[in-house]
């Protein structure tokens, strides 16, 4: 089984990377870009095939390690 975890900054939290990327795209002439945000994508390979059990475990991993609850949120996709 594979888990795809998307970790992103909570709304309202400053995203310096996103801001710099938007600036660089503007400098390169991509004026249609009005904002950019950058997040992390973590992919895990998992043994087992109980999707619901896996979701619980991955959720735990996210809360404990993969995201920083002070400034980040996350979402999980299992496949």
């Amino acid at each position, binding site marked *: 089984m594979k888990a795809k975890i998307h970790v992103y*900054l*909570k709304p*309202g*939290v*400053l*995203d*310096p990377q996103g*801001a*710099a990327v938007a*600036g660089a795209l503007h400098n390169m002439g991509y004026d249609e870009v009005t904002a950019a945000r950058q997040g*992390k994508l973590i992919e895990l390979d998992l043994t087992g095939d109980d999707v619901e059990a896996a979701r619980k475990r991955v959720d735990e991993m996210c809360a404990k*390690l*993969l995201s*920083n*609850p*002070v*400034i980040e949120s996350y979402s999980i996709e299992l496949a």
Partner: protein
Amino acid sequence: MTQYAEGITAEIVKEHGINDAEYAVILDRLGRAPNLVELGIFSVMWSEHCSYKSSRAHLGKLPTKGEKVIQGPGENAGVIDIGDGPNGKKMACIFKMESHNHPSFIEPYQGAATGVGGILRDVFTMGARPVALMNALRFGAPEHKKTRQLVSGVVAGIGGYGNCVGVPTVGGETNFHAGYNGNILVNAMAVGLAEADNIFYARGAEPGQPIVYVGSKTGRDGIHGATMASAEFDDQSEEKRPTVQVGDPFVEKKLIEACLELMATDAIAAIQDMGAAGLTSSSVEMADKGGIGIALDMDKVPQRETGMTTYEMMLSESQERMLVIMKPGREDVAYEIFKKWELDVAVIGETTDTGRMVLTHKGEVVCDIPVAPLADDAPKYERPYFAPEVRAQLNAKDVAQPSHMGEVLLKIMSSPDMASKAWIWKQYDRHVMADTTASSEDPSDAAIVRVHGTNKALAITTDCTPRYCFANPFEGGKQAVAEAWRNLTATGADPIAITDCLNFGNPEREEIMGQFVGCIDGMAEACAKLDFPVVSGNVSLYNETNGVAIPPTPAIGGVGLIPDMAKRAHFGGMREGDILLVVGETEGALGASVYLKVIEGREDGGAPLVDLDAEKAHGDFVRGQIRAGRLSACHDLSDGGLACAAADMALASDMGIKLAHEGNVPMHGYLFGEDQGRYLLAAAKEDAIAILQDAKADDVPVHVVGLAGGTAVTVNGAHPLELDRLRAAWEGWMPALMDQLVEAAE
């Protein structure tokens, strides 16, 4: 007069940390009830953090003047005269230390990073190019469940910010103690250089000048952070997370360059960084110091988020922002420079002659209050206190003698406070700017940073021994200042001045206030006697969790000058056959010592006493010997006494030391006692003879304590500790601690 404006309740006033008496003053000064925006502004300006309401009454005791002081406390940072620069122009050194304790406990990476960003802004706001960073860190017990994660995050945050802005982090100190389990201390110090006649102050604005906002956009970051920094922690504090700000060191770097470029023109009337309570404190301070009024159009404030209210904009603590009052008609100069650096810039208002702060948002006046009371009428409390009981001295004769001194030395050198902190400082760029001559990795009692393009250097140190401050606040305060002076002296520098960061618990508790007053009194005495004035500083109170306060921790940041780089000392140059000498008397002070804690598991006993006259005489003597070129190595004696200083010297020089013990002081007291005002010197035989002769003439106590040679530290030919073993243990402690850490990526 109605007591409360529409929508305001007693509860809301209380949430703003304003008590009844304070609220009554607001009603009186306004002649009406404040609205929410006005209440927010009073609340941040009168918070402990901005107003120093508990500490002001005592801070005044600290000596702040001296021949070399250009600007003492009261501006963004202190300024001292360091003589001529590369082009013959008079140079100044500008420095300050500040705490970011509470934010770092909640979010260690961002808390520490924004602490570095904030202290850098205090320094470059005054026109200085930052040239060095230091950090003084106190964590909980190493085995405490949170400690590793906090260490890892704080260190990464300090490095992440400092490395990116390109200012070397050259030194610091790190302690571990259960007293900080629930409340770590992250104190950062920044040092900068400027031409003495091109310093910028918050004062100097006149009516009719444009107010220019530069830097990052304003978001809803850290609203009420300033009040949080002054509030005691409880178990719910971790819920307050969203108030943590995120730093952007890339923008800070651009801001430094852009501000220095703007400052090279003559277009600025006054300038102020937006620190705690951002737009509020920066505008009020400039208005107050210039004795003028201020009018802001909130619609013009660059905003990161939509729908922001005036309250949010005025209280936001978004990072990397500055407020500049320009000379009329010179706005273009700022626009051109800040556009080039791709930073936001906007004229958001102007100075007035009304003495009032008037804010307009969407065509309506949302705040109209007199400026003066915000600063002048800030509450000032003479908090009641009692002096804590002073513990009795501890005689070495009453502490059991260990059998093998080498094994004891090994244990002490690999204990948390004494072990190498390479795990930390390897994560800091110590060499960027190419002027670092000595940093954490080098055998130097202070960091040494050259004054660019000259043969001079700054010596910089941070010091405090919280165990002593806890045992005896007065002596502990004295000792912290004396140790900083001693560390600068040991490099051959002339100590000039200090900054401080006074970290204490809740001042509303009488014993905590007693610690605070005791430490300040001790510091004041040491500063006066050593001619080592305080030029800037910061107070951090309410450092406690669930009613348990941290050990009193008045961190001292000392700065000195090495006039000639050829005449300095370090402790890595000992050569075979060198004679080892101790300057100062050894009585074996084991009270509150590292020995007692590590070997006996005790923390009792009185703090060692500092004889300031002796301190001065010994230091001046040592500095003279350094400048006479007689020393191959020089090290101050502090934690762990003679044996630990000898171990440092032996490791750094890769050469053993044969110590000799004689006299009445028991061997463990002799080796590990922490008597103050002492130095360990190594010198070739003929130099040692000359030193002893000078000592006699100057009436300074100097004793021969050993000889350099071999591959071990020994005492009276016994108790051997091989250097290889010592090095492995000393270097191994911290990686072993941290390697158990489960580390998150990024």
